[in-house]
């Protein structure tokens, strides 16, 4: 656990207590979750009660207390995607990855979650994998997406 990273984040926000949410966002994006150590360290350094950090970490959907997968797959369940049968897309991911929504594969490669409207409803149903966005996703496309990232994961693991 690199506390220097947390230190850097704190400095970027000038150790300003009111920027706690922004700091947590940065920690989350660095580590894919909020490690306990980081939370403890952060709250001590900027002198806010740990309970405050914890209450934010559990209130907001963007935060996770458990590690997320290297590739975090998010299936949009917004209204436009819902009426275009997004639930079937989600279920297909569940079947292919052998996990339920909200879980991470044991090898920490994939996390699967549902999100509410990514604001590209014109392309419904929409799926994102990390920063990549896929629109008009049909069932066969789901196989392709999973295969593509499995390959990429294997490649990354080698290098």
């Amino acid at each position, binding site marked *: 656990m690199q506390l220097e990273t947390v230190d850097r984040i704190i400095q970027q926000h000038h150790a300003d207590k009111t920027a706690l*949410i922004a700091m947590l966002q940065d920690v989350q994006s660095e580590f894919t979750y909020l490690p306990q150590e980081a939370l403890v360290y952060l709250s001590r350094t900027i002198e806010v009660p740990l309970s405050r950090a914890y209450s934010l970490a559990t*209130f907001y959907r963007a935060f996770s207390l458990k590690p997320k997968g290297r590739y975090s797959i998010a299936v949009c369940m917004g*209204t*436009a995607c819902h009426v275009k049968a997004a639930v079937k897309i989600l279920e297909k991911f569940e079947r292919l990855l052998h996990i339920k929504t909200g879980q991470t594969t044991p090898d920490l490669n994939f996390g699967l979650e549902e999100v509410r409207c990514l604001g*590209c409803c014109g392309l419904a149903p929409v799926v994102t994998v990390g920063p990549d966005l896929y629109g008009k996703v049909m069932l066969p496309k789901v196989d392709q997406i999973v295969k593509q990232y499995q390959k990429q994961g294997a490649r990354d693991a080698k290098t």
Partner: protein
Amino acid sequence: MPHRMHLMVCAGTGCVANRSPEVRDALVTEIAKRGLENEIQVVTTGCNGFCGAGPLMVVQPDGIFYQQLSPKDVPHLVEEHFLKGRPVQKLMYVPPETRTPLPKMMDIPFFSRQRLIALRNRGLIDPERIEEYIARDGYAALAKALSQMTPQQILEEVKISGLRGRGGAGFPTGAKWEHVLKAEGEPKYVICNGDEGDPGAFMDRSIVESDPHSVIEGMLIGARAIGARWGVVYIRNEYPLAVQRLMIALEQAREYGLLGDNILDTGFDFDISVSRGAGAFVCGEATALVSAVEGRPGEPRARPPRLAQHGLWGKPTCLNNVETWADVPPIINNGGAWYAQIGTEKSKGTKVFSLVGKINNTGLVEVPMGITLREIIYDIGGGVPGGKKFKAVQTGGPSGGCIPNELIDLPIDFESLAEAGSMMGSGGMVIMDEDTCMVDVARYFLAFTQDESCGKCAPCREGTQLMLDILTRITDGHGTMEDLDALEEVAKVVAETSLCGLGTSAPNPVLTTMRYFRDEYLAHIGAHKCPAHVCRQLNTYRIDPAICVERGHGCGVCRRECPEKAIFGEKNQAHRVDATLCNKCGTCVDVCHFNAVIVE
């Protein structure tokens, strides 16, 4: 899977005389050669009436009309249109009176019916270059407001314009500003609400992405009017591109001296910081948003006191939506009276709607208030795809309701939408067709609000759960008539007693669907049937043995894909679903290329 395309080759007498059977045969051969026979079906039809231009062919679902085909056109046509998706212009039928193959933008109803105020610069400027905004009269309104107008005069113009908030409730913007101006306490703040939580709405994202300076300029003018020195833009973290472009825009505005101290050398000081949301729908509610900006969990509080008296850090605060802010500069430039002449009696100006769901032209449209739903859905949206029947349009997101086909001539403004039981909301319009189940839609929204309820007040926390349970019972086929009464009862209590808008409006999707689509509820309860075949627990699946064998040769894709291994059969033989194993997921329907799975 059904065929994705149908080629309707005319076999009327005229076309047959023009050798249409040869064209049909050539099509069948070419399609088979490219292995598209499972995707594209060739159908022969009766006379189309345009016998002079035969042989004719209509491509569905695109509705493209080809004329004077000859067998030698076929390979090119198949390659270009059916494989690559580019219709072949030179073979198309051009109606004689409109002999221009390329329309003008203003001939296309999608564009011509729109009137762009908030979206005035869309697609025209590079959002990352402030100079391009300035070139299109950007910051001219600010210059005017700072040099030629008193804060009171700015306020007057906004009042005259009749502008009402675009973020939901439609509160008159001028009146809101006046409250803040008159409130005691220093400093004062302005906030831009860019949380945009309504699923199905994305106008705020688009405005910030394509024209961030319009929002900044609006906030500057507002700040001048109410006497604020600081502003905050609260923006969803799910919109990375919008955040990035906003940051660039703020930096460039600072460099030009349009933000910071002594703006345009007039002695006016103002700057803006950005607060990123962390994913909670309720944070779009004004008091919850303020709480989130202060670094706390985004829970709403009871009002009064209003934000105008007790807002950010306890100071007078003026909070408006992204689109509201973007409307301000043109109002100042052209005068309030100019804006007020657009729209209806009580709803002035234009509103941006996002047109999504079962509609041909999905996208963002900005139209004058008072336009009818019919114009939006048919003239602009191009109607429902696939020849399906329009059933309802959902407006206002989880706080809104479903408006049925009977009300298609309803003029869109704040009042008439509210009368119909829905609301304007942020402007999301999700179009639903005959394949959408309205009970499922109600359940979907309740699941949403139940999940997003912050849990602070009991009516919302418990009431949404209760309503969700009942709706789930109904969609699972276990509902009773008493459930319907209970649903209505709970809905009333939640609407009347919840702390914030999330709870008070949560029953709207339920109440409107019960009001306009009661028959669908009754079908679920009485006949245990979902008329749209969406509620899967009420469906049964079987495979038509004839289609499976003759068309699909027992291909077995359903057997392989079935997650419950509930489908049995051998290659070249009819497959069947074992109802005792089937979990009714419907995967077989989606994967079958031959439409052999029948849902009942």
